[in-house]
């Protein structure tokens, strides 16, 4: 191998080309996928790894998908299949071998040069509408173990040889996965995207030379590490602990699951340590994290805290040491622990615990808590469409706000959940009513539900929907009803989640936070998603911004006065004197008033 050193321009051009490959894969998959999770929620990712299984380049993807995990998946492919050939492809969804959770199917393709040498691995990973679980949902919160969960598990199983499908595997999936044509469509789209990645990499390797590409990979990872060092040097030195508690659901202790993270910052070394070992043992439910999700959830907080332009790859990850314990609920799961819901609920709690710990290191670090996830507005719905007589199963994305206030500004409002980063699309009411026999009665943001702060958290979103002319089943795992998103550095708590059934006579009843519920014709569900926590003292928010928040209907005059310390007259003009007085006094409350969800009867 030549000891080739690329200059800063060559580096820029090659990374642009490689990210272009990942983007081309992404665009292809996005446009050709069949299920809503794929082409509405963008719940997929495409990335390139070195032959040594180091994450090299990604397109903009859901954060929880691609920080850590692809590396472990590629490593298991190499371990199980030491002799890789051009034309091979592997199906991987095993959370015990590096994947996020079983509903994410990954296609791994080794890129083999003309001499038969494994040079890179491309990975396409996409959340499936169904993965063969015992119930028609991809989030089995109540599954006691992988057997109760029921998903087919593929630990890097070969699905193509010499560019042709191994039909046994396809048939196996078709016998277990609901709406198999939809799965098959997504499989085709994923394979197409992965093969495009392979083709492009082979072309680039041939054009610029494989040894140059190897040199590039080393240099690019070193560059990324250096950029990370610069950022971590700015984080205050110190050690802090943060925690975040998931609400109780079946299979958890009655007080829920408290996740704790201890962060130690070493700015002199440009390094940070995150210790997640002091957490409960795995539980008989589907919330346990996979190793990929535990590591990634911690990394998400670090990247949220340091700004947007440090490349996220194996190079920058070297500066963050995430310590995990085998057999922990937020560590390395042992088979047959269920990790069905690993990408969202507890993962977000890890992100929040690390965020609060970071925020305690000093001003400008960490974020507030993001609201918890999986309210009924994001439920998997299933049933038989009376208009066609056909079975349907799909996840809704009617909206989930949950964004946290950050050191940089107010929350991004349509965040979905901490691990999604706001990448998800929000469903059109009309499309959802066209695809499913549903009627969406209402969808609105609720005033006075934001986590108050110098930078405010997202307000809560109310969505009410129900079936039309039939019954539908909805499955969800709504965290955050008890443990609402807390603020950081003096910021307030955002509104918590809630869900009610509205009966035909108009009366309502509260629903369990984790449930499969059948809604009869004429009934509906009211889904209140969490808001997000605020960052910084709300009395430090610029009074003009507070006034604008009132005019825009985000907050009431009362909240402007009581929480933000800004007195507004009936025209919404600031009363200066009263405001000065209010802002000098101690805060009365930082918490939202309880929402009037209607008296459950």
């Amino acid at each position: 191998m030549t000891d080739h050193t690329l200059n800063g321009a060559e580096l820029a051009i090659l990374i642009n080309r490689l990210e272009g490959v990942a983007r081309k894969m992404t665009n292809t998959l996005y446009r050709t996928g069949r299920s809503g999770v794929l082409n509405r929620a963008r719940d997929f990712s495409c990335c390139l790894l070195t032959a040594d299984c180091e994450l090299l380049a990604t397109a903009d993807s859901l954060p929880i998908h691609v920080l850590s995990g692809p590396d472990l998946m590629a490593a298991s492919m190499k371990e199980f299949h030491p002799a890789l050939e051009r034309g091979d492809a592997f199906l991987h969804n095993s959370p015990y071998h590096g994947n996020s959770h079983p509903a994410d199917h990954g296609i791994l393709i080794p890129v083999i040069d003309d001499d038969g040498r494994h040079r890179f691995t491309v990975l396409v990973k996409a959340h499936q509408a169904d993965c063969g679980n015992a119930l028609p949902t991809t989030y089995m919160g109540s599954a006691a173990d992988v057997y109760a969960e029921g998903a087919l598990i593929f630990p890097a199983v070969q699905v193509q040889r010499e560019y042709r499908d191994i039909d046994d595997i396809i048939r196996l999936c078709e016998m277990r996965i609901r709406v198999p044509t939809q799965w098959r469509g997504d499989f085709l789209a994923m394979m197409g995207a992965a093969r495009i990645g392979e083709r492009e990499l082979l072309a680039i390797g041939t054009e610029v030379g494989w040894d140059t590409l190897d040199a590039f990979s080393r240099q690019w990872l070193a560059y990324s590490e250096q950029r990370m060092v610069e950022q971590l040097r700015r984080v205050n030195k110190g050690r802090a602990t943060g925690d975040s508690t998931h609400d109780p659901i079946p299979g958890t202790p009655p007080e829920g699951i408290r996740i704790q993270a201890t962060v130690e910052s070493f700015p002199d070394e440009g390094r940070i340590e995150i210790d997640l070992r002091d957490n409960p043992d795995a539980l008989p439910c589907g919330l346990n994290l996979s190793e990929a999700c535990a590591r990634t959830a911690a990394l998400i907080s670090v990247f949220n805290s340091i700004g947007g332009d440090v490349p996220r790859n194996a190079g920058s990850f070297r500066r963050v040491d995430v310590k995990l314990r085998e057999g922990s609920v937020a560590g390395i799961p042992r088979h047959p622990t269920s990790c069905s819901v690993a990408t969202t609920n507890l993962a977000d709690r890890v992100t929040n615990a690390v965020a609060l710990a970071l925020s305690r290191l000093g001003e400008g670090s960490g974020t507030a808590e993001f609201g918890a996830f999986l309210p009924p507005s994001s439920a998997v719905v299933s049933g038989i469409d009376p208009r066609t007589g056909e079975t349907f199963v799909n996840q809704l994305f009617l909206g989930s706000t949950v964004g946290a206030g950050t050191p940089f500004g107010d929350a991004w409002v349509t965040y979905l959940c901490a691990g999604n980063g706001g990448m998800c699309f929000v469903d059109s009411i009309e499309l959802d009513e066209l695809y499913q026999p549903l009627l969406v009665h209402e969808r609105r943001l609720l005033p006075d539900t934001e986590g108050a702060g110098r930078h405010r958290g997202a307000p809560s979103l109310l969505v009410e929907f129900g079936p039309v002319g039939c019954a539908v089943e909805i499955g969800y795992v709504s965290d955050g009803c008890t443990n609402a998103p807390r603020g950081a550095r003096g910021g307030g708590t955002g509104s918590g989640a809630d869900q009610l059934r509205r009966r035909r006579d108009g009366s309502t009843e509260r629903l369990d936070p984790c449930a499969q519920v059948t809604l009869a014709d004429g009934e509906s569900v009211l889904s209140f998603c969490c808001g997000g926590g605020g960052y910084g003292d709300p009395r430090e928010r610029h009074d003009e911004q507070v006034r604008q928040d009132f005019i825009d209907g985000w907050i009431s005059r009362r909240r402007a006065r009581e929480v933000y310390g800004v007195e507004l007259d009936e025209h919404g003009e600031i009363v200066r004197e009263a405001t000065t007085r209010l802002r000098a006094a101690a805060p009365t409350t930082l918490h939202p008033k309880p929402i009037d969800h209607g008296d459950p009867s």
Partner: protein
Amino acid sequence: MRFAADTGGTFTDLVIEADDGGLSMFKASTVPGEPVRGVLAAFDVAADAFGIDRRALLSRGSTFIHGTTHAINAIVTQRTAKTALLVTRGHPDILVLREGGRLEPFNHSVPFPTPYVPRALTFEVTERVLASGEVRTALDESTLVATLDRLRALQVEAVAVCLLWSVVNPAHEQRIGELLVRHLPDVPFTLSHRLNPSIREYRRAIASAIDASLKPLMTRYLGGLSASMRDAGFPGRLLVLTSQGSMVEAEEVRQAPILALKSGPSMAPVAGGRIAAVESPLRDVIVFDTGGTTFDVSLVRNGRVPYTQETWLGRPYQSDLTGFPSVDVKSIGAGGGSIAWVDGGGMLHVGPQSAGSVPGPACYPNGGNAATVTDASVVLGYIDPDYFLGGRLRLDRASAQQAVQRDVATPLGLDLHAAAASVLSVWTENMVQAIADITVNQGIDPATAVIVGGGGAAGLNAVAIAHRLGCATLIVPGVAAGLSAAGAIASDIGRDFRRIFVTSTKRFDPVGVARVIAELRADAHRFAEATGSDTATTRIDLAVEARYTHQVWEIDVAVDPDQILGLDAARILESAFHRAHEQIFGFHDDASAVEAIAWRISVRCAGSDSPALRLKPSDRDGALRRKRRIYFAGTGWQTVPILSFDAMGANERVRGPAIIESPFTSVVIDPTATVHRSTEGNLVVDWRGIVDPHRSPDPRLEQATS
């Protein structure tokens, strides 16, 4: 004589088509705030060149075609009307939630976009229609009238109305329209089902909001333009360019100003397609336009200009969609003014920041000191500092060298010239990636496409871009510097009409389809009659927006309206869809049924019969041939011939390296390329005898991905 003027951010381009079909091009500075003055200034330049007075020139015109950034500028600078939005009760946050989505998930310094219409000006209307069209809740007129009184009290200047499922049953929107006329007679309004019949309430709501908010302003603007042109002696007809790559009567734009939102850039593929069709047998064309700050890419696929439903007002996901179908043009921040900088890790970046025209690149005499692409080009000898813009602007070579040395060469540890060449390479790669994004989405393989380069700065790297993409042929047209204005001369009078009608090939509804097509044809004929067009030259095309069952995004499928009314309609639609899907995505699915969602007719009444877009020769610098030393990354300094466009004889073939100059641009011909001037007056570059670096690595893989 026909005139076409495209008002851009910096220059107003004027193209004049003489009665023999020959074109002449002129440029004047745009006058911000008073675009009409820039247009008339361009006519002054033209009148000068023709040696007649302006009034005499204008009096010869039959048609004046106008492209304008007035509408988009009004949005960017927030000078649109105070606009209210009326929506179905229960759904007030359509414009806040938009369709979600985000770029750069870890970049929290980008704020969440504010809604196009503030929440305080969004009002709920008690009513509800179901997906089937059935009325679930009747329109409550008494509360609505109270809301309209409130709008008057708030002195609202325009109103947009978007109710759920108004595309299936428009009765409530229509009734609101009647009440608006009665209660707010002087306030213009837009009804979503009429403006933009599409499913997805956000797209209808945003299109209606944008449209309504532009009505007062565009009515004033077009009235003023028309009066000024008439006062200046122009007796003919005023047409306005649309985002759909056609032109319409000014009255149509007054009715629906959103039509003119991206009127200039949509013309580049019209011109590029016309020129490529004359020069090459290939049917797919990539067209790019490089200006001072932005780089626009558009396409022609199999002879047609593809549309997108996803045009953004600003950056994707950080702004709003227009919600309105328009020619697919992708823009990135890359141009002659793009700034080169090296980050803390030692990596070179070019853009997206731009030095603009003020202060401009370091070599400009305006006090700028950032190293830009223009500076790098001066360092490399690609731009002659004494002959920039035909010598109108003197550039300072020493300042360029100093800036590139300080900002690029020193931090990268390269010598000055290698550093300057690197700036061009990174700039080129940014553009190549932008082109790759749009070609992937539209299913075009650059290796089998012609590429057409336009815009003042295109010549610096057009050859490099084409080579990097593996395009067989590059064309730099004679009209390159005013591609959009030239496209206007080549464009047709036309509009699109769309209706929603959902049907599946599994349960095909021939009666419903026949009704929709009959309605669309009636729309088209009404339009053609209103423009006074000859039916013999009017073309009507039908496209179906369709998808496989379970897919979410529709693609356009061209179908023959007569075939789709026949007995075999479902099968014909299916096979046309399979072909279109195969073309865009590289595969199709025989097992899946096809769902048609929307039906669109495009009517085109021939506007011109000059096919070639040929520029008349200018006499300036006629046969000048010089030599200059320039630098290439691979070969270092070389003395190369500098030829003017007009100095090249028809079909004279020149092997690179060379530079071909015109009064508006200079084209760098790399050592690996050859160039000739076609009989139509365009530069055509190819790589005869060069090995194709883009050959397929494995035939089996080729099969798997095609």
